[in-house]
């Protein structure tokens, strides 16, 4: 079974472009590997760049990288799971990062997190919604403690969050999605 290709879900690509889009990304893995001359000691930067392309590290791509670098897939898996920055599961279209640094924590970031999870409908233990709409994670300190509690959605930072405020923001996003369909 073919897996859903995550980038196929990003916005603003007409259908005709999709085939080419996918291939360029696959080309990208080869380009990245070539950039580092298939050097096994460059595994971490290679994984970083690949994740930039795919938004996560698909199993197949990791096996592919292992093959190209001449190391074992178990080793690549080990490195990819060691660093918190890497994700081996497809991320949602919106990645919601809730800061759980000290400043945010004392300003009740937990309640914000709970509200988000409830709003997008995540069961306990789940990180990403089944339709790949939302991924919800906690991170330690986004470096915006003055605005605590802080939530980041994709590249956008929202400060002084409350359960109510974040619910409203998510509402808007969901509505926009609905309209796009």
């Amino acid at each position, binding site marked *: 079974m*073919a897996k859903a290709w995550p980038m196929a879900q990003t916005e603003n690509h007409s259908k005709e472009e999709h085939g080419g889009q996918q291939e360029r990304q696959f080309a990208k893995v080869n380009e990245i590997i070539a950039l580092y001359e298939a050097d096994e000691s460059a595994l971490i930067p290679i994984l970083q760049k690949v994740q930039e392309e795919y938004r996560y590290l698909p199993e*197949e791509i990791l096996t592919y990288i292992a093959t190209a670098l001449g190391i074992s*897939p178990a080793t690549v898996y080990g490195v990819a799971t060691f660093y918190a920055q890497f994700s081996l599961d497809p991320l949602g279209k919106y990645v919601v990062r809730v800061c759980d640094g000290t400043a945010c924590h004392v300003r009740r970031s937990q309640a914000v997190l709970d509200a988000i999870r409830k709003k997008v409908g995540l069961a306990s233990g789940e990180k990403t919604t089944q339709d790949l709409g939302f991924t919800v994670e906690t991170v330690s300190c986004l470096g915006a403690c003055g605005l605590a509690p802080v939530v980041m959605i994709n590249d956008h930072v929202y400060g002084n969050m409350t359960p109510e405020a974040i619910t409203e923001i998510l509402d808007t996003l969901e509505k926009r999605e609905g309209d796009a369909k």
Partner: protein
Amino acid sequence: MAGTMIVDGKPVELNGEKNILEVARKAGVELPTFCYHSELSVYGACRMCLVELGNGQIVAGCSTPPRPGLEVKTTTPRVQKIRKMALELMLANHDRDCTTCEKNGNCKLQDLAHRFGIRQVRFGQRDIKVDIDDSSPALVRDPNKCILCGDCVRVCQEIQGIGVLDFAHRGSEMTVTPAFGKEMAEVDCVNCGQCAAVCPTGALVVKSQVEEVWQALHDPQKTVIVQIAPAVRVAVGETFGLEPGENTLGKLTAALRQMGFDKIFDTSFAADLTVMEEGTEFLTRLKNGENLPQFTSCCPAWVKYTEQYCPEMLDHLSTCRSPQQMFGSLAKKYYAKELNIKPGDMVVVSIMPCTAKKFEAQRPEFVTEGAQDVDFVLTTQEVVQMIRESGLDYPNLESDSLDMPFGFTSGGGIIFGVTGGVSEAVLRAAHYLLLGEELDQVNFTEVRGTEGLREAEIDVGGTKVRLAIVYGLAQAKHLLEELKAGRADYHLVEVMACPSGCVGGAGQPVGTNAEIRSARAQGIYTADKAQQLRKSYQNPLIEAVYEKWLGEPNGEAAHTALHTTYSERRRIQGDSISLGEDGEAKQVEVAVCVGTCCYLKGSYDVLQDLGRRLRGAHLEEDVDLKATFCFENCGSGINVKVGDTLYSGISPAKTGFIFDKITEALQSK
């Protein structure tokens, strides 16, 4: 380095010791270790081997080189405290169900807890239980028992050159696992078991078939026959306090008879048969200059390795089944008839030094009338357990003799158990097989030895035959690279996965090390010398078998019963990557292999070119173009699958051909 070191107040002369562990041993102190193995790289993480230096510094004995004048103390209050704490931490995170553990009585963790008098664990008790992986035919992996020493990781990486296992995740979630948390049977494990042989705990153990064998023995319907591999006879005794290398075949036979096996035979007999077949095959190839070098095929770990990693050289493998499988095939195809029973009512058990033989026995090629040729494979460890269970006083058993017609061997059949043995046995027979003349020479000491790679050049009937003998698949991998690059050139290559060959197999008694392996190898050569007949073709049973059943070596009947075929095998089970949009019903599925072999031949260019052509013809909506990993047909890549048809040998210049096939497929819909 020369000089003197002080260990616990005693001076010790240095003489090239690698580390403080070895120096301490010279002073009569055995430091505890989990993560140190003399044949692997140093990891230095378990903190058991700590010693205190004269200046109060604490260092790891395994990773600290000796220095003249250095003073170490091995049992100071600080060292004791850290060791016990480290042990308790391991125990706290360990499933401590010792009584039902496969490693009970052989476990290093249990042993050290005992040795250091751990009576309580202050850090609680592991409360999570993760799934046990028993997918492999050879091994069982229980992560609940893993102490993260990394021994298995390094043995698979450094000795076998594969790297099936590695550390994953971090902190309290850290595990040692195959890639992507997959099961052992889904990845490229060759079942050699060396990881289990070094695992200090019950986290990696041999998969036992003892219960199944008892059941067969207790079933009056079944005729249970057993074959004993060469390397077993020189190792069983160890577990009963006898010297490693002592040949106890007679006692083992007596024990098996007592357990109720109907017939007890020798795998070495089948090894003699292998020499006839493989020798004849080799001489034919040599004469015709085909498929050289010939690779030996008796080690199933090596065979699986070749299928996974070097499919383009599969036709170099000898087509001979291993001695275990030759035996099974003869037993089920011919011997069962002679006894007038159905193959299904005969149970063939093997006693092997090897875990990979468990996998081999289950290969679908080795079946007669629907019945597996070899039903159960017991390792030396398992047969020891059965002897214990039977309450037998092994060292004092009266020797018994094997049964006929498969209970007699030449010396050539016995030396199969040690690295270089297959080569030597073939050399002993080659002259005769080639010219029909006896050669006085029996021993070919050139091929013996303990180095991982040995080379020899031997005159066979006027041809200088170049041999390479290898053990450890990492060495074999290197050799394959040299062959492919044209930097090496041989006629015959013998490969065994395990250190020193099968005497160092992972089914042998726990605690095998280089010294024990040498003693077992010595035992094999002694047994060889004691044999009246040393050359396989001299074995009268072999002659009888050809006369009665098989015709001539490499003849038709022999081919059917004693030879096999190989196929490419994918290394890791994985999904394919769809390059187009997903979710819509496409009419034709096109998959391009991006597995290693195809990748190297430019399969990626094929992918891109196909994508371009499809878009050019506005067919991207109808065709689901995918990248997949490996069609198990690597030797003839690039492989592209259109619908259900696999096209091989596609080059980037031939994408037009595939494109035409796609249009045809679309038209036929």
